[in-house]
């Protein structure tokens, strides 16, 4: 049995005696008997050796795919070795939120750098220190836009469905309506969008590239949203921003993103990284921690948590968000990732992902029944039809170590990243071809 206690039972008895107590139970005298545990139904504790075996056995029951052609909001991407090294450093791993700036400059500076890189990437003015994930970032972004006059939310059907669901849950608490705009040819239906917006609309959310991989006309969409007097929230894929127009340059008020692609492993869905950033006009509505630069009395540059007047521990019930923990270690990973990749490396990742998707789409189209569902331009994900039961296809490929695209109501949603070599793609196409034969 482990316990990680430094003191032995003898030492503890001695300390207790020093305190003048006979039994540790004396310290629990105030706990009513009815609330006391009598027989805790937990298993016996394990030694480290047994623990490694036990968890190792669970891990071994999961399939780690040799090649992955599935994205839909979570991406297996290249992670530089340095990123893994950095986020394993115990000083970063075991630190608390950097309240004590004098001994936390390393954490604070890493967040400041993260904030700066996120602003560069998205073209926005201000970023916070991160949120839980892309979906909650979208929900918090909605809260930033709401006021007494404008509170309803418009979301394009082409936004990741999990993001839509999360926004719905968050809005439920405040009884706010969430209107979903239908799509047309895989992209947001512009006419329907214009119709959905009214003078109660606080904001509208679109995603670029959208959930189906299609490239939206973000500029036009944002213009339409602004014309209705609402705020435009763009959910972006951060790697694609290596080459795609930034939400900032397209006029977005808030940009949110799932940051997992920036150096984090798939990890069965979490921890991921919620990126949120905005124009300077909205800065004081931004939720979560923000690190700012200042000086100490000796004139040294120093970083601190700042603009705390926004936060729950000051505003309490008047705070617009209850966020306190962010995903600092994930933000460190993202910052390190972006520093490793640099502008050219990130562009390369985006270019490879996009080119490979087009190659895969072309190769798949050689197989009867695997046509592109829409003829819209796409980035690194795309939807094809499937002439057989998609779950049978998925199963067949899985047995050969390949994770197929995601079966959806519209067809199969395929994804490529820089990790999918031409060899892998050709192999996949061969497997698919034999599967439908």
């Amino acid at each position, binding site marked *: 049995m482990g*316990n*990680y206690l430094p*003191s032995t039972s003898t030492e503890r008895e001695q*300390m207790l005696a020093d305190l003048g*107590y006979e039994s540790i139970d004396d310290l629990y005298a105030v*706990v009513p008997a009815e*609330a006391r*545990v009598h027989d805790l139904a937990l298993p*016996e504790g394990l*030694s480290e050796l047994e623990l*490694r075996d*036990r968890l*190792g056995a669970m*891990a071994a029951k*999961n*399939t*780690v795919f040799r090649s992955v052609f599935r994205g839909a909001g*979570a991406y297996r991407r290249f992670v530089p070795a*340095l990123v893994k090294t*950095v986020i394993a450093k115990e000083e970063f*791993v075991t*630190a608390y*939120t950097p309240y*004590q700036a*004098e*001994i*936390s400059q*390393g954490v604070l*500076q890493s967040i400041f*750098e993260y904030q700066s890189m996120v602003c560069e990437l998205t073209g926005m003015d201000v970023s916070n*220190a991160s949120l839980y994930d892309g979906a909650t970032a979208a929900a918090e972004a909605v809260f930033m836009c709401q006021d007494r006059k404008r509170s309803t939310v418009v979301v394009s059907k082409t936004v990741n469905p*999990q*993001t839509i669901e*999360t926004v719905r849950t968050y809005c439920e608490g405040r009884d706010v309506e969430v209107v979903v705009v239908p799509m047309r040819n895989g992209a947001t239906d512009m006419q329907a969008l214009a119709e959905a917006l009214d003078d109660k609309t606080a904001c509208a959310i679109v995603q670029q590239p959208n959930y189906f991989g299609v490239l939206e006309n973000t500029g036009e969409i944002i213009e339409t949203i602004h014309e209705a007097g609402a705020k435009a929230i763009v959910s972006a894929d951060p790697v694609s921003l290596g080459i795609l*127009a*930034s939400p900032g340059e397209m006029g977005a008020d808030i940009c949110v993103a799932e940051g997992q692609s920036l150096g984090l492993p*798939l990890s069965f869905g*979490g921890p991921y990284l919620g990126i949120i950033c905005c124009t300077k006009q909205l800065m004081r509505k931004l939720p979560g921690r*923000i690190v*700012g*630069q200042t*000086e100490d009395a000796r004139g040294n540059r120093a*970083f601190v948590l*700042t*603009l705390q007047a926004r936060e*729950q*521990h000051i505003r309490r019930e008047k705070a617009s*968000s*209850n*966020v306190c*923990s962010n*995903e*600092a270690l994930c933000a460190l990973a993202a910052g390190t990732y*972006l520093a490793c990749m640099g502008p*050219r490396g990130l*562009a390369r990742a985006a270019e490879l992902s996009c*080119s490979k998707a087009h190659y895969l789409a072309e190769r798949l189209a050689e197989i009867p029944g695997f046509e592109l569902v829409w003829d819209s331009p796409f*980035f690194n994900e795309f939807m094809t039809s499937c002439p057989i039961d998609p779950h049978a296809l998925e*199963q067949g490929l899985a047995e050969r170590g390949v994770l197929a695209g995601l079966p959806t109501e519209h067809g199969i949603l395929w994804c490529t990243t820089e990790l999918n070599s*031409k060899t892998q793609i050709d192999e996949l196409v061969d497997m698919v071809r034999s599967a439908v034969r």
Partner: protein
Amino acid sequence: MKLVFELSKQGRASALLPECDVPEALPDAAFRRAEAPALPEVAEVDLDRHYNGLADEAFGVCNGFYPLGSCTMKYNPRINEEVSALPGFSDIHPLQPEGTVQGALEAMATACDLLAEITGMDAVTLQPAAGAQGEFTGLLLIRAYHKAAGDDARTKIIVPDSAHGTNPATASMAGFDTVNVPSNESGGVDLEALRAAVGPDTAGLMLTNPNTLGLFDPNIIEICSIVHEAGGLCYYDGANLNPIMGIARPGDMGFDCVHLNLHKTFSTPHGGGGPGSGPVGCKAHLKDFLPAPIVEKRDGAYALVNPERSIGRMKSFYGNFGVAIRALAYILALGKDGIPEAARTAVLNANYLMSKLEDRYAIPFAGPCMHEFVMDIGPLKEETGASALDVAKRFLDFGMHPPTMYFPLIVHEALMVEPTETESRETLDAAAEAFLAIWDEAHDNAEALHNAPLTTRIGRPDEVRAARNPVVRWMPDARDFGGSDGAKR
């Protein structure tokens, strides 16, 4: 330390990605960005040194004593990092077919079962990403429960004045109004005030127990009864579960739902501010409302299923899975004896340290305490001019992390000390000596304390300036950020 941007030189880079091995196919110019983002261009060797330099300026549990009250900064076992990094956990896609992730689902189901047992709840979701999101989830459950019962009048959440700021903020997020109830002279909930506060508009009560003064409320069962009798539900804020895990269960106290901070009680690392994990447990009557999806075992296989009347999804996928694995490892390691032993030792350590300090420092509420205690620096300040801030900052010079400052709000010059169970007697003695030395210094020369810390690379930063003239990003030379003096290359 230079900023990473200040190390950048055009053209520097690591050779990370290969050339394209398929025909290039890129989006039309209309979709492309006008100019590349000004990300840093730095060689690997310089990046490596940069991040080592930053790590040198970070302070974690691995560096020393961290008695940060309410944060439960216990030791983070290394084996937990190792097992959570296994490719079978870290390299699986959340949308893989269920048949290929049975081990992951088993791990989640096991963690839920163990947490349910520890809290005395009937069901648990791992989805909330942190304590605050757990609170939000819990209040949405309460909201959904009343709504399902057709009871729309319950719009108020009762919160004691000693509560964390997240409690009232969460109530607002969930569409409730907050009713604050005062503490009684022993630091617990004032029963009379509570009785006066409850009524047909009461949706529920949010309570931390032991509370933020480190005190277990002896009236806890009556408190829950009062709320229940008024038709409200009771929400247990698990921030302070550590001293009672395996000893007493929120479920047995009368709570209907609870959130846990895996990054506090269950030893997962704080990561400099996250990722955390805030699972929520509830009694059977709330189970159908849990966020979607939850794990269930059906016909011998684990599956993800959506509860019947789910409040919806709190975030993408299934929660901070990697964090849950670490917590699972922790609970499996400690087991039925280790869990309460850790709790008892946390309480012992807090009382031991408090007993070494109480002759000098004012302890506003009589003990014994649970896992933490609050010192009131008010009397010392009055006598010498040394504030809670001064004491905390001076503590840095002793190579230890200071206690939580100025919380709870009901003690104006509070220092909140939580040693946790993973500290040895020697460490506690060293901390006590430091506090006593500072007490002496305050009496000898309080002026000097205002300049503390003296041994850190930077002194106290100007926080007012940071907030008044926010510089929240580095800015390349060519651009500027509004009127502020953005950090320049």
